[in-house]
């Protein structure tokens, strides 16, 4: 009865499983995020972080388990309900996923114009406001994604994610491919934006600096299960050998041993 402990869970996953062929990617994910909190899921490559996120977004249907938003089940809902649900979500993709055939302001306003039927002029006004909110100058609005640096593209992607004032924002590896300074700028921006909006955030990353900066709570995923969860301040005293090895980036430890045994088995 996790709902007794956290009555205001905005997003709740229980027993979520997903298998691709013989590869059991998610083996029963249990996770709840209270309203207005930021949870960061850490874990190595291939541990199921991205698949978990895609299950929540409805891009992949889980084989088993429940995903609730505001207490309502979202697995196997019809297209109309899914459409309503997606309006609560904002998503920053790992590579930005900006539409390269559109200008920056059109990218930011895309969800407002095409998804919600807003007038182009009104949507442009909001887009310019959001572009400024992520620290970009208004002149950038006329450019195309290919004309921007990686850091600027991340900012635009963040502006697009928050354009419709979503209730839940997802961040997929927000600092991948950025230099440390730009990564810190993006982390700062994410942290301040989420707090200002009062949104609930679920991020996945293997960048510990990013996790420490944007998380209220941290969870570690390993072999398709959440093996540890706690406040970000407890991360260094987790008492979990997997977490300790991961956050210190050690080659030796239980995670490497498992990887070795997997290689031997193969």
């Amino acid at each position, binding site marked *: 009865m996790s709902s007794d402990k956290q009555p205001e869970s905005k997003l709740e996953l229980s027993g979520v499983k997903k298998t691709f062929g013989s590869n059991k990617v998610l083996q029963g994910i249990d996770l709840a995020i209270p309203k207005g909190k930021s949870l960061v899921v850490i874990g190595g490559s291939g541990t199921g972080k991205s698949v978990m996120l895609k299950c929540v977004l409805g891009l992949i249907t889980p084989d088993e388990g429940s995903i609730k938003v505001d207490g309502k089940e979202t697995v196997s809902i019809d297209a109309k309900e899914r459409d309503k649900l997606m309006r609560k979500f904002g*998503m920053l*993709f790992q*590579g930005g*996923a*900006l539409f*390269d055939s559109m200008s920056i302001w059109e990218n930011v306003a*895309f*969800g407002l114009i*095409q*998804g919600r039927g807003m007038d182009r002029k009104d949507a442009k006004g909001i887009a310019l406001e959001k572009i400024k909110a992520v620290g970009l100058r208004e002149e950038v609005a006329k450019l195309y994604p290919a004309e921007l640096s990686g850091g600027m593209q991340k900012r635009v992607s963040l502006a697009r994610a928050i354009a419709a004032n979503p209730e839940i924002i997802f961040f997929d590896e927000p600092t991948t491919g950025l230099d440390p300074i730009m990564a810190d700028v993006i982390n700062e921006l994410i942290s301040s934006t989420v707090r200002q909006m009062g949104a609930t955030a679920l991020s996945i990353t293997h960048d510990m600096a990013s996790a420490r900066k944007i998380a209220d709570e941290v969870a570690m995923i390993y072999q398709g299960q959440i093996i540890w969860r706690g406040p970000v301040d407890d991360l260094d005293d987790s008492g979990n050998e997997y977490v300790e090895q991961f956050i210190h980036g050690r080659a030796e430890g239980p995670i490497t041993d498992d990887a070795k045994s997997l290689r031997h088995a193969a």
Partner: protein
Amino acid sequence: MSTETKEHPIADHIVHDTKSAVDYVLDACAAIGHTIMHLFQSIGALSIFIGRSITHVFLPPFFPRLIGRQIIDIGYYSLPVVGMTALFTGMVLALQSYTGFTRFNAESAVAAVVVLSMTRELAPVLAGLMVAGRVGASMAAEIGTMRVTEQIDALTTLSVNPFKYLIAPRIIAGTLMLPLLVLIGDIVGVFGGYVVSIYNLGFSPGSYLSQSWDILERIDVLSGLFKAAAFGFIVAVMGCYHGFHSKRGAQGVGAATTYAVVSSSILILIANYILTQVFFS
């Protein structure tokens, strides 16, 4: 157990040698069965894709701006390549049929052969194949790149259905524009045959045109236009399908592009036979 086998290659060799003829037959059957299963899976996946695409063609919301852009891309920008193909095909057809028919003293049939061949077969099939190469490849590459760079997932998270936004406009534009291209191809092809017949082969302009007009029936043109609509649908569907299911990386997008062109070209040729049988048998 597997470790033991690896440590004893001789034992492993003996195991392989003891494989009986029945085992080889069963292996071959398994491989054939796997291929057939894969074929049916692909047909099933394509059928579901076509069903979903057609549903979204007729259900709102519509994206007229995107349909317009695709109409320009498929129709206007394919005009030079289709026009050139039709022009030279019509010219070659006149030359070839003339040199062949002189052996039977049937030179007067050149006009009829050119006009019927162009309207019934050559303009629709050649336009279909040219558009498959130009437009089908570009659709698969564009949508495949969007898939690989998560732009299609981004559409979904922004409450926009990718079938409505990406697939439906291309199918509408492909199905509408290919008949128009073929109609222009018919005229250009017949004109090519006319130019060669008049200025090279010495035909009289008046009698060539009257022979062409007299032999031509409404069904000749309409069947070609109907075929063109079917080919436009095939090109758009196969380009979108392979792009939409593109695998990761540059290699995945490259493979999607190749599959789109090859599969749409083959389907055009098969559909052409079936439609010809329906119209003229």
